[in-house]
């Protein structure tokens, strides 16, 4: 009996049709049969897996044919403006005002309610859902609110159990591309080591590996608001096609340490003690679109392409390490600084290195997953 019941309940759950009671009943059944756990997990993943972003090209072509047909059948389509007289806008104006006032009152009430709530429960947030990728692999996740997240290699995304109910907050370590569904009432918040990002509905890429020198935010469309951890009062607004680069605190601290260690005149200075609050350097650049296919290098990893434009060998080596799950050591200062351009798609690490050798001559040794590069 429990088998049949289980499948009815389980299919209702994945299809978001189950009531609370049914979910409770299902969880009880799963607890009684721990051997089902893995199949349940896999089937759930399978259900929520979207094969690939729907290609709208075909639909857009079909739309052109559709408009043609409308024309042939002489269905009035383009002349709709005549039906709505110009003065109608003025006519509705007072309603706009009424709506605006109502909106402000509502917003005020909501804020008040939330402030009250915030004071009452100061309990720490428990992050239960965690998605992570190993070096060499990528993942695509749909969050409960419908937002899509592509997670690049060696990255981690955590979010609370009640994601989407009260708030939309995630914590990111590593690199991810977000396509956030619009919901002005619940802004989408992303926390990384060095910056916080607040969005309403938009698509953008965040590269925030803690071990990297800098955190990069590339905005494809929409608007986002970025605050930097050490400067909570400064808000940076990004417009589409802009990229914000923030130097990571960790990287700065490491640099400081090195400087301190190098200076022999003041050997007793405390390494971890910073006198003034650290102010990370930041810059806003324009994203460069490829003239050929108008893509942006920053987001190409989603399409399984490792694209690098004018990157130093050191920077590229870090990306290759994550991409191929290898470690790379460069034993030559001039090579470290060499600038490289290219795209890898289906190449193996060996093919990739051979290709790089053409633009910058070097030799390498490979022992298992460890690669040493020298002149």
């Amino acid at each position, binding site marked *: 009996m429990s088998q*049949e019941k289980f*499948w*009815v309940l*389980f*299919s*209702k759950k*994945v*299809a*978001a*049709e189950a009531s609370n009671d049914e979910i409770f009943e299902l969880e009880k059944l799963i607890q009684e049969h721990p051997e*089902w756990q*893995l*199949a349940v997990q*896999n*089937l759930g*993943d*399978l*259900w929520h*897996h*979207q*094969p*690939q972003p*729907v290609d*709208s090209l*075909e*639909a*857009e072509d*079909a*739309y052109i*044919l*559709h408009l043609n*047909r*409308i024309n042939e*059948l002489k*269905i009035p*389509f383009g002349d*709709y403006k005549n*039906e*709505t007289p110009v003065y109608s806008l003025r006519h509705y104006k007072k309603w706009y005002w009424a709506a605006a006032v109502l909106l402000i009152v509502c917003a005020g009430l909501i804020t008040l309610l939330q402030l009250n709530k915030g004071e009452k429960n100061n309990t720490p947030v428990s992050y239960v859902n965690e998605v992570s990728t*190993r070096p*060499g*692999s*990528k*993942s*695509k996740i*749909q969050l409960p609110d*419908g937002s899509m997240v592509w997670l690049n290699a060696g990255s981690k995304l955590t979010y609370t159990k009640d994601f989407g109910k009260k708030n939309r907050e995630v914590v990111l370590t590593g690199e991810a591309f977000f396509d956030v569904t619009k919901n002005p009432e619940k802004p989408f918040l992303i926390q990384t080591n060095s910056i916080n990002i607040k969005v309403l509905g938009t698509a953008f890429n965040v590269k925030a590996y803690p071990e990297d020198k800098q955190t990069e935010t590339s905005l494809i469309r929409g608007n986002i608001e970025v605050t930097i951890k050490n400067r909570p009062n400064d808000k940076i607004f990004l417009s589409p096609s802009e990229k914000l680069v923030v130097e990571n605190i960790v990287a700065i601290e490491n640099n400081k340490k090195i400087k301190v260690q190098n200076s022999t005149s003041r050997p007793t200075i405390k390494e971890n003690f910073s006198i003034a609050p650290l102010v990370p350097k930041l810059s806003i650049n324009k994203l460069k679109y490829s003239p050929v296919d108008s893509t942006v290098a920053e987001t190409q990893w989603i399409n399984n392409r490792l694209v690098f434009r004018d990157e130093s060998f050191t920077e590229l080596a870090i990306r290759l390490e994550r991409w191929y*799950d290898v470690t790379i050591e460069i034993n030559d200062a001039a090579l470290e600084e060499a600038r490289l351009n290219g795209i890898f798609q289906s190449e193996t690490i060996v093919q990739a290195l051979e290709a790089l050798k053409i633009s910058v001559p070097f030799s390498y040794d490979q022992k298992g997953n460890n690669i040493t590069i020298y002149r």
Partner: protein
Amino acid sequence: MDQNDDIKRLLAAISINADQVAYKELFVLLHSRLKQFAYSILRSKEEAEELVSDIFIRIWEKRSQLTSIESPLLYFYTTAKNLAINRLNKQKRQLPHSPEGWQVQLQSIHFDPEQLLLTEEIMQKIRQAINDLPPRCRLIFKLIKEDGLKYKEVAELLELSAKTIEAQMAIALRRLGKCMQLEINQLNPKMAIPKK
């Protein structure tokens, strides 16, 4: 994933402002699924394409009434079904009028095993299992998983009881689960090893 809200928003824009941008957006959003659904009944790509166009011509012509639609996704599918059956009647073609005979193809059986952490072997079994589902079961599975319809909407569209939808979905998932569970018992220790 309830897309009815998105569709309602677009319909409202079309209805109130005769918004052509929203009209196009709605067309692009629904074109592929409606075409696939129409194709499963008509078995002709050209006719399916024309049928989607017909639906959207109706939408434009009746745009003043669009805001009263409770469940827009169901409205589109019901219109598609009715127009398709009308066509079959007109042409006196000998094709099945009831869901048992509709030939629906699932799109999401082109999974990417890398992202799902499943072996290619298991994926192959899953594809086979989906292909082997009885036609009506496969149709229900597709409408719910890929097209985003709710149980209730599918029941109304196919003129079946909600209990039948529940049972058919249970059958579909049980069959998929079966091809995994067998594998899990055999391959369990290997699952932990990262794939390259």
